């Protein structure tokens, strides 16, 4: 029994998630501190009709990185393999929701006045991308599923599953039906 418990709690989680590296060692820190892109929406823009562009497309990067800035290896990869051929960077999106989820950044930031960090944590100040852990079966990012296996002792912005959305909505007494978040 003990054996089963130990495997179940330790080995299993390791086996369940595949750990993947981002295509580029992107540094939020440098961009916010050195390049003066202090606001999240300097790159992650909500458009006029409320549509959210998510991670900046390659044109945006090219705005500054048309030529190599600095000598880092990541910089070289960025310019040579993405900007020059104007290929989109295949980012692994930590908070990517499944296809049937409709989430409007406009509604949550403009109307509800949430801060980016409320859901995404302080990731904007990280100096290198964390490892992307993907569930082998469901294909979800572990940041969506939440890191704690037992679901206990979670950080406030750990996990972006339906239950997490529901908790927040309950706390803020905002009632929505299925249509509110699903398409």
């Amino acid at each position: 029994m003990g054996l089963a418990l130990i495997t179940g709690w330790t080995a299993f989680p390791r086996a369940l998630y595949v750990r993947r590296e981002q295509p580029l060692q992107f540094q939020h820190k440098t961009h916010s501190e050195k390049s003066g892109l202090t606001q999240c929406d300097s790159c992650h823009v909500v458009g006029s009709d409320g549509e959210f562009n998510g991670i900046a497309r390659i044109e945006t990067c090219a705005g500054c990185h048309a030529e190599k800035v600095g000598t880092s290896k990541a910089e070289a990869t960025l310019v040579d393999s993405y900007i020059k051929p104007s290929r989109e960077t295949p980012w692994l999106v930590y908070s990517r929701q499944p296809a049937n989820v409709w989430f409007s950044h406009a509604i949550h930031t403009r109307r509800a006045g949430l801060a980016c960090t409320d859901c995404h944590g302080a990731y904007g100040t990280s100096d290198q991308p964390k490892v992307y852990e993907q569930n082998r079966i469901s294909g979800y990012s572990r940041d969506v599923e939440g890191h704690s296996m037992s679901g206990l002792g979670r950080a406030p912005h750990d996990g972006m599953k339906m239950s997490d959305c529901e908790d927040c909505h309950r706390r803020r007494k905002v009632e929505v039906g299925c249509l509110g978040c699903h398409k």
Partner: protein
Amino acid sequence: MSARYGFVIDLDRCTGCGACMVACAAENNVPPANPRATPRTGLTPILVRKVSNGMEGAAHREAFIPIACMHCGNETPCVRVCPQQAVEVDKETGIVVQMPQRCLGCRYCMTACPYHARYFNWWDPAWPAGMERSLNPGVAVRMRGVVEKCNMCSARLHSAKEKAAAAGRKEIDPADYIPACAEACPTGAILFGNLADKNDPVASASHSSDAFRLLARIGTEPKVYYKSTEDWVKALAERDSPQPTEAQHG
């Protein structure tokens, strides 16, 4: 304020062209038919049915009746029977929402629906190579083994909401939300609007003397109204009125 969206469909104006069916399918990422699909195993969230008065010769008349989910407002049959809340009546809009990702495909809701407005995905959805690029990003593709139906083009409601939020408005602009079928109808036979709003043309149309609903006596309060000036067409509303027969092939 909460809305009660609904349709008033003028059968005098329906020429049975089928634009609503195609527009609906394109908007909602409904896949083209599997080679083995038939009218009884297909996916047509809105289906235009051809009816005739059963007469011969010059007295023979035909009409077309577009049938989609009636978004029943009372004792909604499908909502009542779904074992795991994959269907619900949206409080805010009155839309009867089907959530295929929650559905386990027991099809109890299909037996419950008197309008046959619910469809089962008998096959995995498939498009010819490359055609998946033409899919509408606002709508999730369903998978095999689940039930789907008209959700009143909720994707369009979503973008309307988002637009409103971006503009700092709380209510959506009615002009931003019109389902694909109503928008597509070349003769303007399909009228869409908020039945709860007295000033909405749909509300008034639904009260016209020519307006009727299908099987209204069952008491499910459908939010889809029909209109016709022809008596034999009006007679199609209820079962115990003289019955025309379903005509084959258009």
